[in-house]
């Protein structure tokens, strides 16, 4: 179970004092549930994901985790740019206690980066970075995956493989996806929510969330 209790997040704006981004966000996610969170740019979607993953700390409130939760899969973070993909892979194997040979074989096969895996990560395109991040996190058996847009940047083949992994091989896993792409969330999630005006509105089902989000954009 993953539970947010009264999460508030303020960012400090120099010269203007604190600015509230999230205000008393509450929700609970059970094993196997897939929550899609929609919101416009800057609504606080990524901030929420980062707080769930423990990368940012909430100003007040707390996050309770009784299942293992991935790091936020996003365009940035989690990798050291000056190191090669392989050195990053080695580091992650060490801290998550994974077998290097097996993990490397899996990542090679899944991310299809070929020789680029030996090059520094800062030379990767965002699509390649997403493939590496996704392959690595999939090779670790988390109970819950936090996904910040990242799945949507790959080409069709990669998107297909992600869907296979997340919804066939690991369909019993929980998922939090934030996005402004409604199609993906409609295909994948069984619960939906919208972040607007610092609040998270949870909706009964995904189509309701999509309607609410579309109403915002009108």
């Amino acid at each position: 179970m993953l539970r947010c209790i009264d999460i508030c997040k303020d960012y400090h704006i120099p010269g203007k004092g604190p600015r509230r981004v999230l205000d008393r966000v509450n929700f609970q996610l059970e094993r196997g549930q897939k929550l899609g969170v929609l919101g416009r740019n800057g609504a606080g979607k990524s901030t929420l994901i980062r707080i769930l993953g423990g990368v940012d700390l909430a100003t007040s409130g707390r996050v309770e985790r009784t299942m293992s939760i991935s790091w936020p899969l996003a365009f940035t973070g989690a990798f050291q740019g000056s190191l090669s993909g392989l050195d990053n892979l080695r580091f992650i194997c060490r801290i998550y206690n994974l077998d290097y040979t097996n993990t490397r074989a899996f990542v090679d096969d899944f991310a299809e980066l070929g020789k680029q895996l030996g090059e520094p990560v800062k030379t990767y395109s965002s699509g390649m970075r997403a493939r590496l991040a996704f392959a690595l996190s999939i090779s670790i058996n988390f109970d819950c995956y936090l996904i910040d847009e990242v799945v949507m940047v790959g080409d069709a083949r990669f998107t297909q493989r992600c869907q296979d992994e997340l919804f066939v091989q690991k369909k019993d896993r929980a998922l939090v996806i934030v996005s402004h792409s409604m199609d993906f969330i409609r295909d994948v999630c069984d619960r939906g929510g919208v972040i607007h005006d610092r609040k998270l509105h949870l909706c009964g089902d995904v189509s309701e969330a999509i309607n609410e989000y579309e109403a915002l954009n009108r």
Partner: protein
Amino acid sequence: MSSGLSYRPTTLRHAFLLQMRVIWALMMREIHTRFGRENIGFLWVIGEPILFCSGVAIMWTAIRPPHEHGLPITAIVITGYVPLTMWRHSIQRSVKAYEANGSLLFHRQVTPLDIIVARWALEVLGTLMAGLLVGSGAILGGYMKPPLHWGILYAGLGFHAMFCLATALIFAALTEMSETVEKIVGIATYLSLPFSGAFSMVAWLPQKDRWAMLCAPSVENMEMIREGQFGSTAHPIYDINYDFWATLTLLLIGIYLTLRVRRHIVVQ
């Protein structure tokens, strides 16, 4: 099962093993980032301090009189520069360490404490091995005698390593919290060199001024190290009891600041 996955370490032993694994991974990562994989690579961990210590030792041996206050100059330089290098490198590597390593905090098992401990451990190991090599070289070359009392030498080095860790933790946290501190670290460490004890013995000072030097744990440590090297002929002055409590206090302040610093770190 000791996997890095579980959301909460089940036992103290499990938590300890997890943190050890993280620190080890951070050390390996640090070596690869700093020294790359080309040519002698990780040997630079020892190579850097060796060049520094042996360079200074050779220069001082060449230009200074062979004895200072009755003590051989080469041994003075080596017993002073090895711990000094340990401290200066520990500080240098801890300044803005969190900014440089921010992306690692994406992984929840990596904590600010691990980042500094890993960097510190690498510097301590590097300088100790460099000291061993430079010292052995000087002994074999006949410029220096082997240490007389190994016990107090180890004690001095042990205390000094802890002092380095404490100051590294404090500076890492303070430079992250305040830009002013970051700007003055360089000059502050330079101005504190006389209080490192690396270049002098407390006994060389007039009686009434000695207390000022003895406030600094670093001076106490160097006095112990030099008792180990020269025995009582060096007239070492130190107070292990004071050194212990002073170092422990600094260490606790360092750990307290490190636990508080997480909110100040902006993870990219």
